[in-house]
């Protein structure tokens, strides 16, 4: 049981998860201008800002739905830090220059830093998993897609023309294969440290 109190800004997270248009619009109206300014002042433009914001909100949505996300700090600080990290990572990818991530603190809020870091790691893991999934063979990909879509292993087995036992075994092995791919990638070790 967490000692910290949930912040009232939790409503933004919940709103995103519920695909609440009013909340989403409010996020854009209140919190996005600061991000746009930051990116424009750091070798970016409005188009790049648009992408960063969208990707960040999708990452927050994914974490909230997969793992449950609860913030104990203002959404403003959390969101801004996330976008900033994402943008600086973008810059690192495309420029050979040394990009220093100076963590000038906007609000002396460790919670925001911590939460933003967690979400950032989560997002990068998601990207890695997606990348590795694509590397699986078609047989595994199709089986896994069917398994998680249909949800009943009996139906999956029937649709693939195999026995239930075989389908289950294959599912384990495919996920196992994916696990192996992920664990062996250098990025994963970076992220897990």
């Amino acid at each position, binding site marked *: 049981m967490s000692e910290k109190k949930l912040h009232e800004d939790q409503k933004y997270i919940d709103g995103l998860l519920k695909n609440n248009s009013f909340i989403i619009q409010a996020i854009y109206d209140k919190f996005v201008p600061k991000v746009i300014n930051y990116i424009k002042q750091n070798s970016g433009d409005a188009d790049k800002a648009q992408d960063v914001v969208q990707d960040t909100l999708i990452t927050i949505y994914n974490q909230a739905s997969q793992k449950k996300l609860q913030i104990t700090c203002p959404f403003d600080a959390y969101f801004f830090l996330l976008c900033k990290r994402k943008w600086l990572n973008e810059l690192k990818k495309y420029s050979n220059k040394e990009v220093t991530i100076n963590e000038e603190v906007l609000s002396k809020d460790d919670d925001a830093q911590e939460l933003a870091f967690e979400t950032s790691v989560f997002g990068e893991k998601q990207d890695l998993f997606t990348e590795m999934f694509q590397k699986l063979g078609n047989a595994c990909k199709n089986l896994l897609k069917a398994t998680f879509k249909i949800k009943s292993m009996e139906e999956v087995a029937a649709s693939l023309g195999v026995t239930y036992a075989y389908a289950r075994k294959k599912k*384990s092995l495919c996920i*196992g294969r994916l*696990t192996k791919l992920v664990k062996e990638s250098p990025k994963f070790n970076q992220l897990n440290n």
Partner: protein
Amino acid sequence: MDDQDYILFEDYISSELSKDEVITFESRLKSDSKFKKSFNAYKELSRFLEHELGNKEGSKSFKDNLKSISDSYFEETTTSKKVINFNFYKYAVAASVALLIGFFVYNQFTNPSYNDFMTYDTVSLTVRGNQDDIKTKVEEAFNTRNFSEAETYFTQLLEIDDSNQELVLYKGVTLLEQDKFDEADALFGKLSQGDSAFKNKATWYLALSKLKQKEFDECMVVLKSIPEDAEDYKQAQKLIKKLD
């Protein structure tokens, strides 16, 4: 990790293990850190796949909604003022040109108007006897376009001297200006039938009266009857051309 371990992971997650097997599994998690790490990764990926592959609709509708809100937000904030002004400029130019063309076309195609052709000098009468008083009044009334007053005075003067054709002509004008067409036409008609010095002028005014009444055919007929030596012949021809 070998295949057996992954099958074990799956069984554990799907609750397909017996109670004893669960106890064995959980104690192995505690003692074998490699096993634990592997299991955690497997679990994480399982959850990832469930969300990515299983929750497609919810995820897709969120992403679509997000994109549309994002697009309209960014379109609003980055719409260049220049674009708006440019369109406005184009419309302003188009509107002006249209107006100008419209103006010329209008002039070409509308019928000539009475006001374009009607002219008369200020009146300066020659009256008989001692009617100087009324004469002054009628001149002032007429010259200040007080036609109804002028009409009254002309009528008075004509009562005294009904042979003064000039008075008749000008009375006709006051009637025409007041749109008293029947009376005006009667006076002009009589004058143009007569032989006075004002005959041609009266014919011209009669034509103009018809024009004011928009009786274009009758106007034409009258115009054509104006002789070449008339003072208003040229104007009459001009009007004929316009009516054609």
